[in-house]
């Protein structure tokens, strides 16, 4: 075991291999306030990557409903239950990660997902938590009766549990972009990675008898293009980019700005210790207790910042760049005079420019040119 720095838990931790960060780290921010559960991302991923034999059940990208949904079923509550109650002390995690809590005979605290766990990807869909009494009413912004859609892909972790667990060393993290891949020629189908990944994002192909996972659409990323699940999202929920470490923040880098500067996008189950690289803007309608368990101690501040976003031109501008270009945005700017936001690629070429507020058009009730009345629709 080596000692490595995991900034998401504010401390050093034990990991089977020494710290070895990639030159750039693939990362993305998903705004959970905007996801409508349409599964367009799921279909984009499915039709691109998992239409082969043995992949019938696979969703490298999935959208589940929280609190009750899960693919594989119960992935979150199962690992939380195994880990047991664990404390945070302010921004520092005082509990054990799944590497530190591993029994002596294992490298990672995990469990083998059962076949049935993969068989109900839409179980719990649209099921809200809580109940309203007769004559009750909803509250804002936190709802008494709540659920939210939860889109998920591989976290391309800084400290992948799958990689740590593989006795065959068939899993690797690419130095050029931090994407985590299973070597399909070397994998022997032991499924140690399937046991170890707490997010349930490594899957076994029973026909090819090897394990497979989200590949971060690396052929696209290599060409400066965002992954399929990101570019296909009709709700413009997602933004993929690269993330720096907290000691090397570039404020004009979109993911750095959201994660490190504004701290509006949070890691998922940081207490597990993987330093995953998919970040979430928490849904404002959900009770904070639930969100703090999922996204750590930064929840309250993140929601406060997000709700004030309309008065923050930079944040508002960047949120408008979500889903507006297929190019990877390396840096962004907002222009107060024109009320626009723009994104730039690796060569600093402008690849997208959008108005932060769309102009209003007032049109008369009666259109004289067409001799028709307009209805009150947009």
């Amino acid at each position, binding site marked *: 075991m080596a000692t490595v720095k995991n900034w998401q838990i504010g401390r050093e931790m034990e990991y089977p291999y020494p710290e070895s960060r990639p030159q750039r780290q693939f990362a993305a921010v998903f705004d959970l306030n905007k996801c409508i559960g349409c599964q367009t991302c799921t279909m984009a991923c499915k039709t691109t990557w998992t239409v082969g034999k043995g992949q*019938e059940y696979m969703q490298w990208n999935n959208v589940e409903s929280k609190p009750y949904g899960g693919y594989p079923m119960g992935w979150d509550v199962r690992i939380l239950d195994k880990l047991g109650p664990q404390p945070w002390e302010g921004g520092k995690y005082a509990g054990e990660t799944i590497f530190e809590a591993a029994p002596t005979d*294992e490298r990672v605290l995990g469990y083998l997902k*059962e076949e049935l766990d993969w068989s109900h990807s839409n179980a719990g869909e649209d099921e809200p938590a809580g109940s309203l009494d007769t004559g009750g009413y909803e509250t804002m912004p936190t709802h008494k009766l709540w659920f939210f859609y939860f889109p998920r892909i591989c976290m391309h972790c800084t400290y992948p549990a799958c990689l740590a667990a593989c006795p*065959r060393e068939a899993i690797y993290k690419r130095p050029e972009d931090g994407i985590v891949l299973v070597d399909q020629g070397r994998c*022997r189908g032991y499924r140690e990675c399937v046991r170890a990944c707490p997010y349930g994002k490594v899957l076994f192909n*029973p026909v*090819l*008898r*090897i394990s497979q996972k989200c590949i971060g659409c690396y052929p696209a990323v290599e060409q400066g293009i965002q992954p399929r699940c990101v570019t296909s999202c009709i709700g413009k929920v997602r933004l993929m980019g690269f993330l720096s470490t907290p000691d090397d923040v570039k404020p004009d880098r979109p993911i750095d700005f959201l994660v490190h500067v504004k701290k509006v996008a949070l890691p998922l189950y940081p207490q597990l210790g993987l330093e995953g690289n998919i970040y979430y803007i928490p849904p404002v309608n959900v009770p904070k207790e639930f969100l703090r368990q999922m996204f750590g101690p930064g929840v309250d501040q993140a929601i406060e910042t997000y709700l004030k976003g309309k008065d923050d031109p930079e944040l508002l501008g960047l949120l408008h760049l979500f889903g507006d270009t297929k190019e990877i945005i390396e840096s962004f700017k907002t222009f107060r005079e024109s009320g626009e936001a723009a994104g730039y690629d690796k060569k600093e070429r402008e690849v997208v420019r959008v108005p932060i507020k769309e102009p209003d058009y007032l049109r008369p009730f009666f259109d004289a040119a067409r001799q028709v009345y307009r209805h009150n629709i947009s």
Partner: protein
Amino acid sequence: MLALSVSVADAQQKSLTVRYVNSAVPADPGWSGWETGPSVEVTLAPQTVAQPYLLSPSIKRLTVKAVHNGGWIAFLLAWKDATKSSVMYTDTFRDAVALMVPVGKSAPIRMGGPNERALILHWKADWQEDIDKTFQDVAQLYPNAWLDWYPFAPGEPPYDIRHWTNPEARRYLTGWVLGNPRSQPDKRTAAEEQIAEGFSTLTTNERQSAVGKGVYANGGWRVVIARPLVTGDPNDPAWGPGKVVPVAFAAWDGGEKEIGARKGISDWITAKLNPVGAK
């Protein structure tokens, strides 16, 4: 540790006589030649060196016999297993057995070491299933499943994987295209020849000369793994008629989800190959 020390004592007391036979050596557990000759009981100990460990192996001992005919060497490995496990769903594992021989004069028991290579011959029940029945495609794994469309697959439902010959479809057959023997639908034999220089280095040998066949009956497996003594491969062990080589064994009970490092292992057993012509 107790079990490990028992195993060491076991190895010191026992050696495996590799009988010379003046006949073909078929990779067949039903061969009449197996009915005679000495056998050795090999104790399997927990694997507690490389994580994940297997603290309590399900298979405690193997009964081993071996013969050679000057050209080929064959091992019969028999053990009790109440359940036949030969199909790999996402959460099931297959039975397996393996034997290891140093490529050079000696090698560490931990699957060899740097520049101390070991040759490992590994029989797998799922490969045996592929050969005895047919390749375990979706139609075999899930007979009631129906998918009406694989976008790039040629042919008709159930879109037998062996017909996926066009490049667009083959992109989805990653392991097969990359030469991973697990993913090959047409298996020649149920044994895989592998080399290793320590834990985590296990690699399929480029040249595949070993053959294997297992039969499950009466609550147990009888598996034969055979290989030419000399193939010209640089990974040939230093074995031959009249020579003495160390051999080690490992076994996996798929029903207990044993796979990879989760295995019962023996210590080195001394295998003495009788000279050609010896009775």
